[in-house]
Every structure is written in C-alpha cells, then in structure tokens.
C-alpha cells in the first residue's frame, strides 16, 4: 500500500499507444512538408535556390545544437547551458583565431566538450538534477563570456580558417548545413550500431532499471553531456564563420529554438524515446517558422510567443504520462 496520490495503471489497450507512436513518428516530417508548401504558396520566391540555401544556412547551427542536446534529453536530463556555451565558444574562437589559426576550431570544440564534461560529472557525482546544473552553468558561462570578451563583440579580422564553412557542396548545399547533417548522421549511426542505443534508452526510460541491469549509467550520462558540449562548440564555429565575429550573447537566442526543435521532433522530454533525426526535422520546422513569420506578415517580435507555445503543446503531445505520477 503506497501513498494515496498516484496509482499507475498499465495501459489497457495494446494497439493504442503503438498506433499513436507511429503517427507522432511522422509528425515532424508532415509538419515540415506542410510548412514548405504553405510558405511556397504564401511567397512565390520561397522555392528559389537563394532562399532555400539561406534557410539551410540559418538552420545549421540550430541543428547541431539540438542534436547534441537531444542526447542529454534521451538520457532523461536536459542541457539548458548549450546556448550560453555556444556564445562563450564564439568569443573564445574569435579571440584564439589570430594566434592559433586553423587549430582554433578543434581547440574550441575540445574546450566546449570539456565544459560539457564538467557539467556531466557535477550532475552525476553530486547528484544534482541536470536542470539545475545546466541552469547554473548557463549563468556562469554567460558571465565568463562577458568577462573574456570585455562585454563586447570580438571582431575576426582574418577569417580564412573558418571560411570553408561558407563554401557550397556541389554548388548548392551550404557547407555548414552539410556538416550539420553529417554530425546528426554520425551520432545516429554510432548509437545504432553499438550498445549505446540500448544504454541511452534504458537510462532515459528507467534509470533504476538500467543501473540494476549493470548498465554504465553514469558514464553514459557524462558522455551525453560531452557530446552536447562539443556540438555547442561546433555551432559556435558556424556562427563565427557567418558573422565574422564572436559575441558574448551571440547564440543566447538559440536556447528556446533548440529545445523547441527537440520536442517538435517528438523526442520525449522525460527521456528514452526519440532520436537525433527527429531533432533534425524539428530544427528545420523551427527554422522555417522563423523564416516564414515575416513572409506571412507576423512581426518577428512574436517569435518568442511561438516558441513558448510550441514547446508546451509538443510536450503535452509527447509526454509519457505513465512515467509521471505527480506533475510538479
């Protein structure tokens, strides 16, 4: 006999959840196609190479950020520090480019990975919820970015080392978008062909069961934070290559879109269920909404309202109620 609050009843209808699951699996793709069609109808210039490549270039950093954070969400946590970490990384990259040249890119990504690792270790060893660790991390990293940048934009005079991201693959596909898709593919494939998929899912669905099955839960979680950090670093490189500068708040407005991309993709915020492919689709949907709002005449000031609504609605649609006994 337990406390009277919650009585979890197993699902009675075996066909129901599966069909619903299949449907939500295609939702991000359906939304993506619908958006492209709607935008094409609203603006006859939308389906041109120029505006499509522009949209892809805008989407690239978001795709990378969302893909990394998806791993943390799959493990049942959340990484709120990604945008602040990316901002800091743009500053570091801009500062280091003159001295390190081409080496600056890998060094910044490594630094971001290390910062992700520190947060992961703090979360695992100190047993602090990831939400709190990364909320604190976000604040700390923002402040560090302000301090090292002198609270201003750091211009990049010679951007040749990151110029390659501005190239086009086959003349049409922006290099940054290609890199973003490769990152998603690599993460997805590594998960799929190794035991990592099992470990990540088990950790996300039921950490206690995973632990008692001898799964390396702590290592998996720390690794997820490392990947999330590395992706934030890579996103920063993309941002610098586009803006020819680093700024202490440059990526800050990407946090909400990144979380929105994850939940729009249908990855469960409670962990376990989802994939990085879904986040790729989610990131494209979010980017198109962002690009499309001005086209249909909505001032971009309303963007934040949209993200807020998207996140709440999508979580409501994908939440696994059986796992949540008490809503806090």
């Amino acid at each position, binding site marked *: 006999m337990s406390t009277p609050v919650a*009585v979890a009843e197993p*699902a009675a209808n075996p066909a129901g959840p599966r069909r619903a699951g299949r449907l939500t699996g295609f939702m991000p793709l359906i939304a993506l196609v619908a958006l492209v069609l709607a935008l094409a109808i609203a603006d006859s210039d939308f389906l041109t190479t120029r505006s499509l490549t522009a949209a892809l270039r805008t989407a690239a950093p978001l795709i990378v950020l969302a893909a990394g954070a998806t791993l943390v969400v799959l493990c049942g946590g959340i990484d709120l520090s990604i945008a602040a970490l990316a901002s800091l990384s743009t500053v570091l990259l801009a500062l280091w480019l003159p001295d390190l040249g081409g080496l600056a890119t890998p060094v910044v990504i490594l630094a971001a990975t290390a910062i992700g690792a520190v947060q992961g270790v703090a979360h695992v060893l100190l047993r602090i919820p990831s939400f709190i660790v990364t909320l604190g991390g976000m604040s700390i990293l923002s402040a560090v970015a302000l301090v090292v940048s002198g609270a201003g934009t750091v211009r990049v005079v010679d951007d040749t080392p990151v110029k390659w991201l501005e190239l086009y693959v086959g003349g049409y596909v922006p290099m940054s978008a290609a890199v973003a898709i490769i990152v998603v593919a690599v993460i997805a494939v590594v998960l799929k062909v190794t035991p990592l998929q099992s470990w990540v899912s*088990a950790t996300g669905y039921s950490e206690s069961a995973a632990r008692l099955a001898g799964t390396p839960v702590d290592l998996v979680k720390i690794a997820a934070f490392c990947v999330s950090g590395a992706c934030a670093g890579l996103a920063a490189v993309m941002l610098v290559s586009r803006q020819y500068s680093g700024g202490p708040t440059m990526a800050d407005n990407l946090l909400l879109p990144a979380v929105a991309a994850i939940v729009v993709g249908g990855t469960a915020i409670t962990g376990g269920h989802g994939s990085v492919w879904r986040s790729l689709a989610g990131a494209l949907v979010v980017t198109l909404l962002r690009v499309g709002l001005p086209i249909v005449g909505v001032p971009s000031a309303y963007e934040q309202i949209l993200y807020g609504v998207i996140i709440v609605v999508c979580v409501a649609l994908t939440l696994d109620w059986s796992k949540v006994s008490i809503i806090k």
Partner: protein
Amino acid sequence: MSVAEMPALEVRGLVKHYPGVKALDGVDLVVRQHEVLGLAGENGAGKSTLLKALVGLVTPDAGEIYVRGEAVKLRSVVEAANHGIGMVFQEQSLVPNLTAAENILLGSEGASVRRGLYRWDVMRRLAQEQLDKIGSKIDPLARTDSLSFADRQMVEIAKVLRIEQRSQHPPVIILDEPTSVLESKEIDTLFAQIRRLREFASVVFVSHRLDEVLDVCDRVTVLRSGQSVGEVAAAGAVPRELHRMMIGSTGSDDHYHENAASVVGSEQPRLSVRGLSGKSFRGIDLDVAAGEIVSIVGVHGSGREDVCRALFGAEPATAGEIRMDGRKIDLRSTRAACAAGIGYVPAERKIEGMVGPMSVADNMTLTKQKARCAGPFVAPAKQASLVDRWIERLSIRTPTRDTAIQRLSGGNQQKVVLARWLVGGDIKLLLLDHPTRGLDIGARSEVYRLMRELAASGVATVLLADSLEEAIGMADRILVMNDGRVVTEVACPAGGKPSPLDLVKEMV
C-alpha cells in the same frame, strides 16, 4: 432486515485484473456495524487492491460494493468519504510542516475557512473535537513533524473520523498495517483506541502479525489469490489455523519441483560473505554453494532486502567482505557485480527489473552486451538468434522479439528479466528478490522449474521468497533474519522440510 442490522459495508464478487494477473478474483467481504474485522492474507493475496477499491483508489472490473445495503460506486477518495469509508494509510499521508489541526481538517475545512481565510479559533475547536473523540491529548496547534510516529497516527485517525460529518452514519475506518512501525507500548495504545472506535464505527484491520489480528479483531476474513477463502471468529482461534488458511493446502503436489532439487556438493562455497554490515543489517555471514538455493526469510524490516541489494552492490555495505569462488570482490557498483557473474532480479519488476518501452530483445541483452556484439558493434543477426533461442528455451510467450516488454504478461516479463542474466552464459550467482511477486500460479510454477534447472547447472541462488511456503518449498537451506541479523539457520532438504511455524517463531 432492519437498518440497524445491515452490514456497514459489504463487498460481493469484486474482480480486478492487471495485465497477466488477477489481483482480485471475486472477493466477498462483510463488515458488520460496530465490529473490528481483520483481513489476513499473504503478499499478493489481494489485500492492498481490495483496500484501494474500498477507498476509491482502484476501480474494480466487476462486482458490487454496498454501504448499509445500498449499492455504491466509489470512484475517488472523496466519494468513499462521502459514503463514510476512510483509510489510515500505512505510509502516513500527513503534511509534515502543517499543524495537527490543519492536517485534521485538510480537505474538509468546513467552518474553519471563511471567505478563503483560515479562522484559527474555529479550526482549533474543530480539531480538538476530533481529537477528543479518540481521547487524545495532542495539542492541535503542534506542528506535525514535531510529533512522534504514534502521535501522528492518532492525528491520522482523528482526521479520518472527519468523514462522520459527511455521511451522517457511523463510519468504516480502514487501518492498513498500522502496527508495522510501532513499539509494543504504542501498539497497546493503538489497540485500546481501536476498541474505543468500535463504539461508534466499524473498523477493518490489516496486519501481517496474526497474533495481533486475533487479539484486536472480532472476526477475521482470510484472502488467498484474490479470493475470500474463509472466515473465523477471533475468539478461540489460533494463528496456526489462520496461517493454514492463508497458504492453502498445496503442500501435497510437487508445486516446487522438489524432486528436481539438485544435490549440493560440499566443496568451496561459490559465494562466501563474512561480517557484511550496512545501514539496516550487521554481521551477516553467508555461504552459498554451487547449485544450492538459500532462502532468507524475515518479517518486513528484518533487513533481508537490503542484504540482497548489498550483495549486488546496489546498497552500500559499510563493512565485511564478499568472495566469489574464493576471489574477493569489491562490490560498490552493480557493474562489478555483473562482471563477477552475479545477477539480480529485483522485487519491483516494472520499475527496476525491466525497461518497459524497450523490446524483449533489448531487455534481454541489456546487461550482457558482448553476447550480441561483434567487436564494438551490435550484430543484429547474432542478437536475433540468441534472443529467439532463449524465447524458445524459456517458452516466453511474446508476439515477436521486438515487442515492447511491457505488453507481455507478468510471468513472461519475469522470464525475460531472468533470461537477461543467462544469455551471457557466465552466471554464477542469482539473487532473486521476490521473483514470483504478482505472478499467477502457472507462471510461478514455471519460474520455480527454471530455478531448479539453473541450480542443477551449478548456479548458486539466494532467494527472498514471496511467502514462507515458497521459501520452504524452494530452499535447500533457510536463514532467518530478525532486526538486521541472522538469528538462525535451518536445513531444508527435500523430504525434511521444517514447518512454517518453526520459522515464524524465530522471525518475530
């Protein structure tokens, strides 16, 4: 029948299914007015589900509940309260940082709240009225977390008695395991209280301690496998009689496959534990030979569950050593235990034993990843043939190996959880924490058969059984734990089994 003779509460043919298990299978129950009715039954007999149904926390699939002869549907705790049925929960439901008065009136504030504001004088008076009913001297304005456990229980009873105001009838008060954490003096006070309650209420009393049940109750109803199997007047009855009704007479057939019990060699023990101590146990010595099944029995709070978890590294041990095949192992993580060939089947199968949404195949290979991998990569064909082999070998009924494990029945889920430790082929010691909990009789029998087979192949087993009968039926040797220590060891060979009562003597 006049209203005065109507039963206060009557249950007819109550049925509740959970996937793979019938928790209630047509229970009948009568609670007369002004009587204390005891409810006895082993774990899994359906007591908890029945009580939950009576206070509206569980909706039964079939059957009726009558309050004073009138059929009622109880869909929530509030509806149950409106019909005069209230429960004192085993784990207390008081809010610790509120005063006793606030807790007593929580959810039924009545006149103590006017225009959304507390009226402390009224609240105090109303709470005092409740406390007076049970003759308690607790200060209504004391903070709940400053009270002793026994006092908090009194507050809880006073709170439950508020339902009198709603139903205009003598209420039915359900006490679920109220004595499990009380000292003996406190128990005496509680029993005096229960006898007092009888003057103006009916009481349903649930306890694992049969002597208590007989002491305080007028009548006892015994549940077994979700059915009411009998009823005895408490006066003149003895615990032994009740116990026999609880476990039924299944001793005659070979439910536990005793003829398949393996012969245990006397070589070096597979598992050897010396002086293991932890939060709730100390100085545990334990040897288990290859092929031997050792059962640890003890009442709730004896610490046996924690010992089992400590052997797997899931519960910290503060002192002592554990050796497997003579090699000392550091068991501070479940990973190390797995690597040493130890497997653990947790009691909470749905939460700890399996990952519900993951497939049968992924659940089965979760621990022994090597068994399905080629180098660092998963080999799908290897996994498929391995999993299919074990599905066939254990006759696991599942549509496909890719079906989510949560769609299987309880018995089949448990077989997958067991298979997880077997697919690697390196299992040496199995720790089974209530492996048959919530399983129906057929599934239990299959789990028992599997345990015998594993023992025959040299696997050592530590079993925390769901019932004493199961412990005796399965074990070669039984350790009795009481209050964190092993108090005695009883040989339990096939053909020379001890009686449950011999063990109960040591347990309490």
